[in-house]
């Protein structure tokens, strides 16, 4: 056990999780949740770039009404692969596996997640699934749409369905293991004094997310496995050629895949709750409502999947029930939006980069959610189903929601993760660019879709061209807006201003340990005596366990309490 740090130790010389060990091996075999979070950060960024590349091809093709850039067969593969990479290899792991992995133990005052080895295993499983999927893409790709609908995927498609399915099946286990780790950690590893209702809302959101991961992912796993056998051995329960029912596949697929949308957006909502409270320097309005609405979304999220089957020969009565339940899930989402807005009221708001992303999130998520109500309405959906209205709707949730929250969170915790500040000016500039680019990309798609432009075709009638040109132009701006942070964040890891332990002067436990944190997270086990968003003057928010050499042990104890007397 090394000697504890003191204030006198210069930041550069402190031992932290990054400089505690060097070499590739120390990273590839690490059991430190913070390092595993960074491993995930690197790998999901890689997959994001691939998914982004496919998005670029889509937008290039749709610039003109004729299918002149990609053949229809290639276009089918491009949009399928865009969806599969973005959903299974970026959006689902994005926030939980990177920021969640890094922050869950820090925020509840634990030394690590409950099962560090399983945590590392989950990254390798993710990587294996990713490599198999990349193999499938290189070998010839897949063209079924990310939804793998039967019987196309079982009988008619000539693309690499089984290899891609195997990749998704395997990577699903990484998601299950992450969720399992979070649930057990949050239940058993909280620091003394960290009661359930003192937990930051980020933790509540991750708890709810983990529930979905645990309860939903196994169902998609067995579904994909059975699908592979249908294709491979002509046995089955889905394909009509085998006497099966294709709608059963859709039921089982969406039983996971609709809640999966909440796997993507719930952790984002957790981040936004942190950002809104902390950058307004106000306790969150209605803490328990925001906390329980996360759980409510996790539960209600499992009751609505049938709204994907409104036009798939599902019974009308089931459709009515699912329609009603889909409206109901808007309630907990709306609770969150209203509470965030109420938190802003009379707060002392600062418009740093993370807050810009958070404010953007509220607006875009609201648009995404409200248009969801159009689609949940049984009759309206018959008109809108499979149009660009749907495409725009879920991009407002996935990109306008999850991606913006992810970027906001990444900036907000960047000083904690790397010990360096990002350049604030560039940060604000890129946040605005992303916001403008995103809206220009997807707002026109609502109109095109409402006018009847169907999704998943490489050619379209000329009257839709104006919307598509606007959309492609917006996509370029969005692309630039996303590349800027990629560059300056990497730059800042080496050249950024050194970050203090608590650059935003916040009460959260993760800010009460040095930046970057030591391997064991805290110098001493913290004892929590304050509420999640109880703001205090900066001088009271000292690093837990760090004291001046002349203060002695009694004072150190007082600091451990969080508020030196």
């Amino acid at each position, binding site marked *: 056990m090394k000697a504890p740090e003191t204030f006198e130790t210069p930041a550069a010389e402190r031992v932290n999780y990054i400089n505690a060990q060097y070499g590739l091996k120390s990273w590839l075999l690490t059991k430190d949740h913070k390092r595993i979070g960074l491993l995930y950060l690197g790998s999901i960024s890689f997959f994001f770039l691939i998914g982004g590349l496919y998005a670029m091809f889509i937008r290039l093709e749709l610039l003109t009404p004729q299918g002149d850039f990609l053949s229809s067969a290639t276009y089918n593969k491009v949009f399928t692969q865009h969806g599969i990479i973005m959903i299974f290899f970026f959006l689902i792991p994005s926030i939980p596996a990177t920021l969640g992995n890094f922050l869950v133990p820090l925020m509840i005052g634990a030394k690590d997640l409950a099962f560090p080895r399983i945590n590392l295993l989950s990254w390798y499983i993710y990587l294996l699934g990713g490599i198999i999927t990349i193999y499938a893409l290189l070998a010839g790709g897949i063209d079924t749409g990310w939804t793998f609908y039967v019987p196309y995927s079982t009988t008619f498609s000539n693309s690499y369905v089984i290899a891609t399915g195997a990749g998704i099946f395997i990577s699903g286990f990484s998601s299950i293991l992450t969720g399992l780790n979070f649930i057990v950690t949050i*239940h058993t590893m909280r620091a003394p004094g960290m009661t359930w209702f003192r937990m930051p809302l980020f933790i509540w959101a991750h708890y709810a997310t983990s*529930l979905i991961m645990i*309860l939903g992912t196994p*169902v998609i796993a067995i579904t994909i496995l059975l699908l592979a056998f249908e294709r491979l051995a002509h046995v089955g329960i889905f394909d009509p050629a085998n006497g099966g029912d294709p*709608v*059963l596949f859709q*039921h*089982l697929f969406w*039983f996971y895949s609709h809640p999966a949308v909440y796997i993507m957006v719930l952790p984002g909502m957790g981040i936004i709750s942190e950002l809104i409270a902390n950058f307004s320097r106000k306790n969150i309005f209605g803490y328990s409502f925001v906390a329980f609405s996360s759980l409510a979304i996790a539960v209600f999220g*499992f*009751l609505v*999947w*049938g709204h994907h*089957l409104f036009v798939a*020969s*599902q*019974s*009308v*009565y*089931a459709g009515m*029930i*699912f329609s009603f339940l889909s409206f109901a899930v808007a309630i907990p989402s709306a609770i969150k939006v209203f509470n965030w807005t109420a938190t802003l009221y009379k707060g002392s708001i600062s418009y740093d980069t993370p807050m810009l992303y958070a404010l953007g999130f509220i607006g875009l998520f609201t648009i995404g959610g409200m248009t969801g109500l159009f689609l949940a309405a049984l009759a309206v959906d018959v008109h809108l189903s499979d149009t660009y209205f749907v495409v725009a709707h879920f991009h407002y949730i996935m990109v306008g929601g999850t991606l913006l929250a992810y970027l906001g969170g990444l900036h907000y915790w960047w000083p904690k993760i790397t010990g360096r500040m990002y350049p604030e000016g560039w940060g604000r500039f890129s946040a605005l660019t992303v916001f403008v680019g995103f809206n220009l990309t997807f707002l026109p798609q609502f109109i095109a879709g409402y006018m009847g432009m169907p999704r998943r075709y490489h050619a379209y009638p000329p009257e839709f061209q104006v919307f598509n040109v606007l959309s492609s132009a917006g996509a370029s701006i969005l692309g630039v807006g996303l590349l800027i942070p990629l560059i300056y964040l990497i730059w800042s890891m080496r050249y950024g201003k050194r970050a203090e332990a608590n650059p935003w002067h916040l009460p959260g436990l993760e800010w009460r340990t040095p930046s970057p944190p030591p391997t064991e997270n805290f110098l001493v086990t913290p004892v929590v005596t304050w509420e999640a968003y109880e703001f205090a003057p900066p001088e009271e928010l000292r690093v837990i366990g760090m004291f001046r050499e002349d203060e002695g042990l009694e004072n150190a104890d007082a600091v451990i309490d969080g508020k030196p007397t």
Partner: protein
Amino acid sequence: MSEHIVSLKVYFTIFIALMVGTALTVWAGLQDFPGPLNVIVALTIAVIKATLVVLYFMHVRYSSRLIWVVFASALFWLGILFALTFGDYWTRGWL
């Protein structure tokens, strides 16, 4: 250690109960009960046997409330899957 050690007597009693249940379910399976009663009897015996395993062999009877909740949540979510999907299949012929 605050764990509860289940006595040998309990283990053997449960084992015998499970054996009786197995014999009973085989016997019942060979009888020609009216209507859907065969299915109901078979499933009732299976549920009772599973409950005994969960409560005693898996120590849930002596475990914290949390374990109860975890286990119940799995059944609840399985119930959602069955209920809502069957809701579709049952009502398809209605219109």
